[in-house]
């Protein structure tokens, strides 16, 4: 029987600095590895530790994947110090991911915050591969400051895409910033979408997810059409270790993507 705890090996091919605290690692798995956008993996430094991350690359690229990682704790800071050719462990992918097929024919509104753009990049690249399947695709992205925006060089390329409308805002501006200033939730009014045939996808820090969800409900989205990327300290990834429970669900197994309909009656979902 397969050992569900055994990682496969991945080699870090490239390390890209996105911001002072965020780096993207290009990883080449040494065995067959595929994921669906929105699923997560457990990435480990052998003998040191393991943490959950969501790949940020196009799921249609099968021979390697990207993970964009914020230097936030013990494992992430050690990962930030790794150089190309470092060997890492990969378990997964875990969870359900975004149900792209159910989005067919619908407008899609994506709301992102901070490093939450990492998993959303994977989603965007997956959507870009089949744009004719959907109605309008609109993205609103907010970061704390211009320095906290990730994929700075990629965003202008995305903004050129046909049928894709992306606006970026920062909470606090500086002298380099010419764009919008204010919370991302302020950009969610008066959007040219048909709420009865649209879905929204939210990924970002818990406080931003909370207020974005409230705003989406206010502008007419139904709870079943709001998709949230939830996060806790997923460890096993298989619904066994018990760490990422939220109400009757495990985020690792039943999520990490949930509709607000699934979560709205649960307690303390934004903690």
């Amino acid at each position, binding site marked *: 029987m397969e*050992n569900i*705890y055994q990682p496969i*090996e991945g080699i870090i091919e490239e390390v890209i600095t996105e911001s002072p605290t965020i780096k993207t690692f290009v990883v080449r798995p040494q065995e067959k590895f595929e994921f669906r956008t929105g699923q997560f993996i457990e990435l480990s430094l052998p003998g040191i530790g393991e*943490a959950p991350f969501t790949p940020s690359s196009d799921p249609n690229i099968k021979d390697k994947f990207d993970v964009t990682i914020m230097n936030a*704790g013990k494992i992430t800071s050690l990962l930030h110090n790794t150089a190309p050719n470092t060997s890492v462990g990969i378990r997964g992918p875990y969870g359900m991911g975004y149900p792209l097929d159910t989005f067919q024919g619908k407008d899609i509104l994506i709301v992102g915050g901070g490093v939450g753009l990492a998993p959303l990049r994977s989603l965007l690249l997956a959507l870009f591969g089949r744009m004719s399947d959907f109605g309008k695709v609109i993205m609103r992205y907010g970061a704390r400051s211009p320095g906290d925006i990730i994929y700075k060089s990629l965003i202008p390329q995305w903004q050129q895409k046909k049928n894709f409308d992306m606006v970026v805002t920062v909470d606090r501006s500086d002298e380099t910033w010419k764009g919008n200033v204010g919370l991302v939730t302020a950009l969610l009014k008066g959007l040219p979408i048909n709420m009865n045939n649209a879905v929204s996808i939210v990924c970002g820090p818990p406080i931003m997810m909370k207020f974005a969800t409230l705003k989406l409900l206010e502008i007419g989205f139904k709870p079943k059409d709001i998709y949230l990327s939830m996060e806790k*300290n997923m460890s096993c990834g*298989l619904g*066994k270790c*018990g*760490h990422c429970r939220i109400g009757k669900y495990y985020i690792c197994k039943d999520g990490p993507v949930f509709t607000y309909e699934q979560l709205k009656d649960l307690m303390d979902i934004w903690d």
Partner: protein
Amino acid sequence: MNTLYLREERYFKFLDELSREYRVYLPVKAQGQALACAFGFKAATADYALEKYSVVPKDEIIFNEYRTIDSLKSFFSPPKEKVASDFGSSSGIPGDEKVAVFGVKNCDLFSLRIQDFVFLGGAAVDPFYEKRRRNTLLVSGDCLNFKEVCFCAALDIMPYALDGFDLNMSPLNAGFLVDVGSDKGREVVEKYASYFLPATDTQISARQKKREAMLKKLKEHLVLHNIPRKEEIPGIVRKGYDSAIWKERILTCVECGGCNMLCGTCHCFLLSDKKSGNVNEKVRSWDACLYLNFARVAGGANPMKNRYQRLRNRYLKKFDFFPANIDLCACCGCGRCIEVCPGKIDIREILNSLAKEAAAANEYSTG
């Protein structure tokens, strides 16, 4: 298969034979601690621990009157275990040895239903648990007495097993009635058929009387504790989410995690990576939701930083998560968590207090 009878003197020989095929574990008497009962019940003070048959002197082989100190879970997922090592080194899954555990009680069998759901169900089968479970023969026995903390019957779990075992032993006169509960159990009694006699109807009805008397005695004790009915518990716990009870009862908690460790249904574990010489290992260790960092995420944010949230989490997991997923409360009423708690936190009392609070709130809202 019909009920069989095994005479006591044949039992020892049977164990000898069985131990050639299985690593046999048996209950032995252990140093017990007396717990005072709030209602004056004179508690049994003996304790039982499971020990390897090979090291137990013959005259110390006993039939345990009630459950052992530890639950069964360590037989299937040990407190700490290497579950993976370096890439490409397939060290295989341990657990080939056949193990027979005697002295199992119905509370422990119930807890295995929860453990089975976790480790055999869900997104994938845990191969470590699965192999050990498959290679373990569970021999349960009727309870002849109970501890002050025992409350299985309050949760409709009987002090004797009707299913979930491979073999069950009910002491009667100078021997045991033996029931077969699985193919694994059937193979054993067929292989050692010469040890067993068919049981008589008189023996079976005598056992029934013993069982009923024991249950009656237990229920007389439990009525004093006034534990809510199991159907009501999930609602009561959910309703008590913001209750002050969590904050009050946690005051004496020392965060030892004993309740989690001894609990037969608690299954949480942590995967960690470590170096062992030149080898990198992934190790699985039991975790406890009463520990500070149970829910901590990267960067230090902790959704359960307050102790009362962790106490409440334990109850929500048992009485909300599991009922919602498999329609079972993940509590077998063994009372181990009560017995082990240095802070005297008592699950019976908390459920009772939550029930009273919920009833008072109902009365208030309906005027």
